[in-house]
């Protein structure tokens, strides 16, 4: 899932400053699960914005709505009426959600209320970790299901850098060394031989370095 976190209230206040009616629009998918932009967070952030605006004397009217999914036109449609009623939209969706709303309503200012962070999982309650860098050419099959592109700070594909200490990454001691994990995992599943494969320098053109990506499935187009 996409993991995001809320921006600080003063930053949001500055973003929406100058508008009279702002719709705080939540998303019921990934950002609800990562507790950043669901119905509850919409309620809390809206309340904070009302307090901040009244305190500052700007009297911005804050309205609230949460839709099922912001990155899909079918669901965006359900917010049409509310969006039209407001001067601007503060989206608590991920970056994709914000842009989907903005594209759908070209004459309406749409702002991001969250900082979209990464693609990850819920590690334990209240802890989310990054697992996938969306490089566009998955190598997980060769590394026992542990991604060196995402989880190794240096994105090493041909073995560890040698800088790890006590199985921790030398860049960030709070993180385990991805290569330590890969080796242990491959050993456990009897696939250490896979490490003999030499990887050529990674082709990053399949990642964001080649510009934003589009996938077209002709078999699904109408």
């Amino acid at each position, binding site marked *: 899932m996409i993991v995001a976190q809320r921006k*600080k*209230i003063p930053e949001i206040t500055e973003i929406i400053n100058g508008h009279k009616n702002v719709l705080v629009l939540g998303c019921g998918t990934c950002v609800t699960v990562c507790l950043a932009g669901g119905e*509850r967070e919409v309620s809390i952030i809206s*309340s904070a914005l009302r307090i*901040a605006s*009244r*305190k500052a004397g700007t009297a911005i009217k804050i309205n609230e709505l949460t839709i099922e999914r912001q990155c899909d036109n079918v669901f965006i449609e359900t917010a049409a009426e509310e969006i039209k009623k407001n001067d601007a939209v503060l989206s608590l969706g991920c970056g994709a959600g914000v842009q989907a709303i903005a594209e759908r309503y070209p004459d309406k200012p749409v702002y991001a209320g969250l900082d979209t962070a990464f693609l990850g999982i819920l590690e334990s309650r209240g802890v989310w970790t990054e697992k996938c860098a969306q490089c566009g050419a998955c190598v997980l099959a060769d590394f026992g299901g542990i991604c060196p592109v995402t989880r190794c700070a240096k994105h090493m594909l041909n073995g560890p850098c040698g800088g790890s200490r006590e199985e921790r990454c030398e860049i960030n001691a709070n993180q385990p060394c991805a290569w330590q994990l890969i080796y242990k995992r491959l050993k456990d599943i009897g696939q250490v031989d896979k490490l003999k494969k030499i990887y050529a320098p990674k082709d990053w053109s399949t990642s964001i370095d080649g510009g934003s990506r589009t996938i077209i499935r002709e078999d699904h187009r109408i």
Partner: protein
Amino acid sequence: MTDNTFEPKIVAFCCHYCAYASADLAGSMRLQYPAGVRIIRTPCTGRLEPEYYMRSIENGADGVLIAGCLEGGCHFIDGNLYARKRVNAVREILEESGIDKERLRMVNVSAAMATNLVEVMYEMVDNIKKLGPNPLKKEAVSQ
């Protein structure tokens, strides 16, 4: 603003198993607590949503007091510990929104600690008197 006539209105969310019973005991013991404290009984402080605190302030409460069981004494094992974390998170949001975080406070009492609860209430009233009325109060509307 230190208006002597200012009597803070404090919304006190009291856990049924401790603080609410404690407030009841305060009555039996003829202990007087500040008239501006309005008690709302809750099954557990862990049941309280952050929105409750935000909306209380938004609608003009000068302070919000969360009174839960002593740590380790929660009827539901750890509801009060979760409540503490949520209160701390909301205190941060309030501070970011321009409201002094001291307007929201959590205390832990047992059902037998009526004197302590009353003391805490007076202490909170004093603190809020120093802070002055809720800056949103003049235009507070009920929603």
